[in-house]
């Protein structure tokens, strides 16, 4: 049985499934209980599972994450919601110094299998600090898994996997895609890998890597390239940002010889640089053109009236694709 769900509904469904089947799972955060989350990702869950399992916490991100670490240490599977990704800043010490290192510094004796869910990204006319893309901070920190689904099916399956894996997971939810469309989502439990990219279109001429809210942008640009130049781009939704699915990335570029990486995070020291370095390290002899990054500019995400110009657009991605396919 499947149902048509949007991403918020799929995320809620994943939480519902795991709350029902695993009594170690707890959901906690700001406004996740009575209010059902500011995006309604936890809608109705407190009514269903009670305030001991779906918990409105005081307004304190370090408190939410730090106490989730303690809950995880002592046998629970907390899923902490950070209301918007940039609100995590007060909790970063807990993420970097503790969640990421618990297994390592106790030589495997203790672990911190918690999930930190957070809406992220621009394009929703949000106020200041509601639109950041910080995935590279987390991918840079050993011990954390980082994933960013781009559709309802992956969101549910990956969130279930995240609640089951024995590592801390940063689960990034592209706010712009929360209600962007529905997809058939199976009822009950199913899993999507936390380590595999997904090839969305098969292409011969260039590999186009994207994740989160940039996936639909990449798909549109690929379509446009096909229309305008008759060239085909292989669009790959990375989904898992740490670890990266090296095999899929390399095998695609070995075929196409060209690569464009799209991300809405700032360009400098973003994950695009890591992917480009991977290609330089392991696929340089296959490359027929320089690697191109199309990314957010190296400025703070600006106020919403101009945020669209900050983000990679279909046009910018298409221009990047053309630059790469025309180089020889």
């Amino acid at each position, binding site marked *: 049985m499947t149902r048509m769900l949007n991403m918020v509904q799929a995320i809620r469904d994943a939480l519902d499934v795991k709350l029902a089947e695993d009594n170690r799972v707890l959901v906690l955060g*700001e*406004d996740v*209980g*009575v*209010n*059902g989350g*500011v995006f309604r990702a936890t809608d109705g869950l407190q009514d269903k599972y009670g305030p001991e399992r779906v918990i*409105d916490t*005081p*307004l*304190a*991100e*370090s*408190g939410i994450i730090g106490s989730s670490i303690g809950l995880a240490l002592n046998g629970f599977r907390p899923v902490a919601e950070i209301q918007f990704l*940039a*609100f995590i*800043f*007060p909790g970063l010490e807990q993420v970097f110094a503790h969640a990421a290192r618990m297994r390592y510094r106790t030589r495997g004796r203790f672990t911190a299998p918690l999930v930190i869910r957070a809406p992220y990204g621009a394009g929703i*006319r*949000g*106020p*200041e*600090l*509601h639109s950041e893309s910080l995935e590279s901070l987390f991918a840079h920190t050993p011990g954390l898994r980082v994933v960013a689904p781009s559709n309802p099916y992956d969101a549910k399956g990956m969130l279930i996997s995240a609640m089951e894996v024995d590592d801390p997971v940063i689960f990034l939810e592209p706010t712009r895609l929360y209600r962007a469309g529905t997809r058939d989502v199976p009822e009950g439990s199913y899993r999507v890998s936390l380590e595999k990219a997904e090839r969305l279109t098969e292409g011969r001429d260039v590999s186009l890597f994207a994740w989160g809210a940039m996936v639909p942008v990449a798909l549109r640009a690929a379509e446009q390239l096909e229309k305008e130049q008759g060239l085909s781009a292989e669009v790959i939704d990375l989904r898992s940002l740490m670890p990266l699915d090296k095999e899929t990335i390399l095998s695609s570029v070995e075929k196409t010889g060209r690569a464009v990486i799209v991300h809405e995070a700032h*360009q*400098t020291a973003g994950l695009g640089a890591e992917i480009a370095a991977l290609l330089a390290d392991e696929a340089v002899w296959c490359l027929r053109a320089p690697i*191109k990054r*199309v990314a957010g*500019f*190296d*400025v*703070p995400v*600006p*106020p*919403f*009236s*101009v*945020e*669209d*110009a*900050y983000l990679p*657009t279909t*046009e*910018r991605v298409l*221009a*990047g694709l*053309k*630059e790469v396919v025309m180089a020889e």
Partner: protein
Amino acid sequence: MLAENELLQHPGFTSAAELTALPALRVVQPDGQANEELLSRVSDEELIAMYQQMLRVRLFDRKCIALQRQGKMGTYAPFEGQEAAQVASAVCLANKDWMFPTYRDHAAAMTRGLPMQTVYRYWMGQMDGFSVPDELNILPPCVPIATHLLHGVGAAWAARLRDEDTVSFCYFGDGATSEGDFHEALNFAGVFHLPVVFFCQNNGFAISVPFARQSASPTIAKRASAYGMDGIRVDGNDAVAVYLACQTAIHKARNGGGPTLIEAVTQRFGAHTTADDPTRYRDQAAMNEEWRRERDAVQRLRLLLTSKGLWDDNREEQWIAKVGNELVNAWEEAVAKPFSEPIEMFDHVYSKMPAHLEEQKKLLAGGGLA
């Protein structure tokens, strides 16, 4: 007064009742009756000016909600219900003093002189909405919670190091008192004996979470003693009480008396923001009726002024008409002014633009294409 629990079913309402039942400085009762001895510390002119400003910002707030509903502004954080707390505190500050507001404190910022047009532009997502006139030491609204309290501490520290008598005045809400930075700020201010006033508007809710779920202690003011500073609990819907508490704390800070924590107990009548639906977590209809009748700060001050012969329907009408014109004119100016150009996002990132940003700026100027 009605027994609160007759009307208020939700746990959040109970906590509000608990809050108002605790002792707090109050000068003017909801029916406008005043403690004459305390009231005599405030001049008639000051009372009228505060009332006029409270009414002005309330009308502004309502206009902003309407503009947001019409799609002319972005998500907006209304403050209706908190006018006394914001206005009566802000009028106590001198121009050289430092003000650290949150995203709900534009009534305070406007009282200090932030142009109405700037506030409109901020909520329109325009870059110049963040610009504060040179003569005012007001920071743009702080979106992160409680982080700016430490900036208030640092600014006050600088003033003390230079032997200046300026004061830092920090606005924040009840939710902010749960953050670690709240503790760090109050502790630093206590240890270094700094001229800071920590002004907490306890409006009973952090978005949906009632104060009873924010803190197991029914009062915030009490925490002051743990940091070696004075704490004052004040009826935040009583402009006169807020005014006297703030005046006292600011005067003390300015004269080397150190920091104060003020808890102004108030209510947010409306939603957290225009993206919030308060009916999901509280009985908004009951609130609208009960809170507006019992706790409306604007109405309370008006009753006082009327009883003293300082205000009447005629003056009210004239003032509303005057403010109405201002609201419209400022809005027309705000939309007539050119909107932010995307290229402006590259300004003010660094003191001098590094080469890679120059390149990106050129890229965007050329249509954003490679």
